[in-house]
């Protein structure tokens, strides 16, 4: 089956600065792809090329086979976009805005039901300027979804939300996937990726450094580290020798990073037990560490 979103060899420059440098990926219907990377990595530029805001300098972007700039009208009718903040009249109410956007589409969701789904019923008549940051984000999500899009692009969808609102948004994104939408989200929250993403694309300085499913990334060479937590005064050199000479690096108070895969975990546990030292944690690293390693911020 064809990808709903297809990006091939995308290059975008601003003057001398190369913001996106040859990125390729696809998003299939009924899947969620998370675009992950540090600030300034090129996530928003990539997304804005798919949304038709920017024309690529090189490469190709297609949404259901259409060019988002040249064939805009074919793309916008089935595209739902959530920008990073802004995008609404501050003197209007959520209900007015959702009703307006509903009237742009042939078969929209019921505006009041949608406001209830994103938890804004009680604030439906308030002025946008009086909404909290998290409430504005949820309004923005409602506006993205009101036209029943089958391609959804969410730029940092849970930024500024409390834990409850975040769960609500995650649930909505999972429902979108179940209904067959292709979802592309940018984020720098790795727990969001682990919960939602079928595939992760990691971008760093405009380049794609990984494209895989989260489990594969966590099983891959970039995750070949074990973190050890202990309140005791540990002799890192002795531990390293006991593990056959693999590096053991102190990370700060009570934290060490063993440069080896999960196969060393039993040996680590045994080493602590043999010396009667307390051990409060030993586990493979998570997506956070993988991201830092792949984006060159951690050796």
């Amino acid at each position, binding site marked *: 089956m064809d990808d709903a979103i297809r990006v091939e060899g995308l290059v975008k420059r601003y003057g001398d600065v190369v913001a996106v440098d040859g990125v390729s990926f696809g998003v299939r219907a009924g899947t969620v792809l998370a675009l992950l990377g540090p600030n300034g990595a090129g996530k928003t530029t990539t997304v804005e090329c798919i*949304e*038709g*805001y920017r024309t690529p300098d090189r490469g190709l972007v297609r949404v259901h086979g259409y060019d988002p700039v040249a064939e805009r*009208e074919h793309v*916008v*009718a*089935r*595209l739902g*976009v959530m*920008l990073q*903040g*802004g*995008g*609404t*009249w*501050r*003197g*209007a109410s959520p209900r*007015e805005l959702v*009703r*307006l*956007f509903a*009237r*742009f*589409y*042939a*078969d929209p969701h019921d505006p009041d039901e949608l406001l209830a789904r994103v938890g804004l019923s009680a604030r439906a008549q308030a002025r946008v300027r009086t909404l909290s940051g998290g409430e504005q984000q949820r309004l923005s999500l409602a*506006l993205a979804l009101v*036209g*029943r899009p089958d391609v959804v692009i969410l730029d940092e969808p849970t930024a500024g939300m409390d834990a409850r609102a975040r769960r609500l948004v995650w649930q909505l994104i999972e429902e979108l996937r179940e209904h067959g939408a292709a979802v592309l989200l940018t984020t720098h929250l790795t727990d969001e990726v682990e919960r939602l993403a079928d595939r992760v694309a990691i971008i760093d300085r405009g380049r794609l450094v990984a494209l895989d499913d989260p489990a594969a990334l966590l099983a891959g060479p970039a995750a070949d580290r074990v973190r050890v937590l202990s309140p005791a005064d540990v002799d890192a050199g002795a531990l390293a020798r006991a593990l056959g000479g693999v590096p053991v690096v102190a990370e700060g108070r009570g934290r060490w990073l063993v440069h080896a895969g999960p196969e060393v975990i039993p040996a680590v546990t045994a080493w602590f037990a043999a010396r009667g030292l307390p051990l409060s944690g030993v586990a493979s690293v998570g997506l956070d560490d993988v991201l830092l390693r792949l984006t060159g911020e951690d050796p």
Partner: protein
Amino acid sequence: MSRAAPPRARLQAQATLELRLLLRNGENLLVAFGIPAGLLVLFALVDVLPTADQPPVDFLLPGVLVAATMGSALVALAISTGFDRDYLVLKRLGTTPLRRRELVAAKIGAILAVQVIQVALMVGIAVALGWPVALPLRPLGGAAAVAALALGTAAFAGIGLALAGRLRATLTLALANTLFVLLLGGSGLFFPLDALPAGVRAVVGLLPSAALVELLRGALGPAPLLLTDWGVLAVWALGAPAVAARVFRWE
């Protein structure tokens, strides 16, 4: 299969909300209704203006209609569009089925609706103040007045959108209000332009506001309708929107 609503439905929805937001904003109400109505009532009752031997309300109505037109087409449109741009509303609308030309048409439609209310209100107040006191209303004068107001709207909207389309909203706000005061001062609302020295009169006569006041004085009174005034206003009505279309940036 199209998942977008038909163009007319989109335009109608957008124009309706634009109008509601315009009428909800206190500053817009002040500049579009409060100031022109206030000028009309104040100077009709307090006869301090050199009104060229005309009863004050007869002299004032054309200038007040121009003040109202500038208040909506220049000031309110510029400021609302400027803030739309700053708050990324225009950008956000860019990924919906609403097209740019529909958005522009919706804004113009909302402004025209405001102007219908403005004209009704100003003429209503003038009538309550005794208008027309001593005016020989000419046949087709009303049609000429509507034509002149339409050209004026195009000129002022063009100026407002040229500001809003390129500058930050706060700067647009300051400049639109300054232009409103300058164009109003040079419009002949407060005194007959012929009272000015010939050189100044010639320069001021090139302002769209002055040309429009002169045309309304002709359409709604004994003054002649001059071809030069139609010419000046037509140049602004074509030129300002053309400049706006060229300099406008959506984000």
